[in-house]
């Protein structure tokens, strides 16, 4: 038996990433869907709920500033979930078998689609942020705030990709696509997406408090919400939540992957 059995991780990850880039640049409209949806949501939601900022305790007087980080996370989340749908397609079409018979460490088979999803997510996140700033959102957190927003977006994209990949390797069909998207939708919907936690009532208040996505939103809102300053206190809960969700869904994906040939 040879001493080295698996190929070096760096070139393999690079190869996977390059393939993902190809999907972005060669498929017309590949990023349009994931970009248009959060933009429409940004415009629609700010129009419908704009007056919420008048409620006592709302941490900003600009609902656009409140909603921009949410839409960034939505765009990143759906780009992440699409990684699961793409993987399910690869499994159904047999491409994934080609990767499975290569001497590649199994976690790299998950890392590849995640890297691709993060790359794709940068388009809607940047577009939403720029459009949001152009139509009234305020950049109260400066450069550090923007860094926090991108960290939250990249992290949430990773979480959604891990979730989507877990669903893909467990169900091995593109028909699991709605389940992948539903996970992102519910995660965001049952958080402090539209209203700060103190203004929520009943079961939704409890769920939003326990929902780690609320902390990720707080991390991102350091960029545009004047009442959430850039600080360690507003940063670590979000980072910890991301780490926890990545660990849980990543483990689910790895276990599902290992069970594929059994």
């Amino acid at each position, binding site marked *: *038996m040879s001493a080295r059995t698996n*190929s070096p991780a760096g070139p393999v990850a690079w190869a996977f990433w390059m*393939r993902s880039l190809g999907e972005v640049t*060669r498929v017309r409209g590949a990023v349009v869907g994931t970009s248009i949806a959060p933009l429409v949501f940004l415009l629609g939601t700010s129009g419908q709920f704009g007056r919420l900022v008048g409620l006592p305790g709302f941490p900003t007087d600009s609902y656009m500033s409140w909603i921009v980080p949410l839409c960034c996370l939505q765009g990143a989340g759906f780009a992440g979930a699409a990684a699961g749908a793409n993987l399910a397609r690869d499994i159904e079409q047999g491409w994934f078998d080609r990767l*499975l*018979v*290569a001497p590649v460490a199994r976690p790299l088979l998950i890392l590849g689609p995640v890297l691709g999803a993060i790359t794709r997510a940068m388009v809607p996140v940047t577009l939403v942020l720029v459009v949001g700033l152009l139509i009234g959102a305020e950049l109260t957190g400066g450069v550090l705030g923007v860094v926090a927003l991108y960290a939250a977006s990249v992290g949430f994209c990773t979480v959604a990709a891990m979730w989507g990949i877990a669903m893909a390797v467990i169900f091995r069909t593109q028909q699991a696509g709605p389940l992948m998207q539903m996970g992102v939708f519910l995660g965001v919907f049952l958080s402090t997406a539209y209203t700060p936690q103190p203004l929520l009532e009943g079961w939704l208040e409890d769920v939003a408090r326990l929902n780690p996505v609320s902390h990720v939103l707080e991390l991102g809102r350091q960029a545009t919400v004047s009442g959430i300053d850039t600080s360690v206190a507003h940063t670590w809960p979000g980072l910890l939540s991301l780490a926890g969700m990545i660990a849980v869904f990543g483990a689910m994906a790895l276990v599902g992957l290992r069970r594929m*040939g059994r």
Partner: protein
Amino acid sequence: MATRSSSSQPAVAVRGLERAFKGGIKAVDGLDLEVPEGEIYGFLGPNGAGKTTTVRILVTLLRPTGGEARVAGHDVVSEADAVRRNIGVALQEAAIDPLMSGVELLRMQGALHGMRGSQARGRATELLERVGLTDAGGRRVGQYSGGMRRRLDLAMALVHRPKVLFLDEPTTGLDPTSRNALWREVRGLNDDGTTVFLTTQYLEEAEQLADRVGIIAGGGLVAEGTPAELKSRVGEPTLHVDLAEGADVPAAREALSAVGPLVDCRDDARVAIRAARGKATVPIAIRALDDAGIAVESVEVVSPTLDDVFAAVTGSTLEGAGDAGAADDEVAGVGA
């Protein structure tokens, strides 16, 4: 790159292999087989016989539920990574990303097998030339024909110079020209020392390519040997004589019965006899008919085919079986 281990071990060794699915259905049931290094082994069987399941176990895509299998000297379960490093795999229905070009796919395959950039680029160029895709290498695979995809698929399986190459129904859906080109390539690879494990439903493919053939049915091996050995087990060749219009059939039967034992024939204008000496029987039969004054339309010697072998050992015929040459030779327009 593939590791070259000691050559004393068989390329593929399977002992009591089993694979059961939910409900206790056994797709592979106690399979034993051994493929020495440097051989082309044809694995023949109809849909559902267990051949694809066997291949998926041998290439580490599926775990066996019983028995053991070693490929290139490595256990497919406990040394799966080592097996992967030593095998090339072209599975049924070439799964290739249509958005990528041939060059990109080969370079990616090189990276998956631990090649450096320049090494992978050089190998991609070499392989595209080998499979006749140099001009198409820069084009997206979505624009390739079925035959081109198959050749690229084969090239991808060869990037790391594998010791054992698994080809799962490599010519399904190909036109005769593409099929012949692929066969030439497989023979060339084998000449270079690569062991080839070929699964097919096409009898002609097995006859053309395989040094030995294993026939699987019901999850187990029911016959194994060279194509000639297998066919000889079924019986002798038969000489078929089509008589000219108006010829005296009983007289023809009497004349030919002196050459060899008569064989039942459904066609009234045709007489058949056993031809233990193969084609050498033809002039003897023609002379006998000529002496009896019987005019002949045509004569052919029919040898047993792998389909006959398959029917004999399994009691059924292969679905989608190819047009394996039933007639070894045909002499048309022979008159008395």
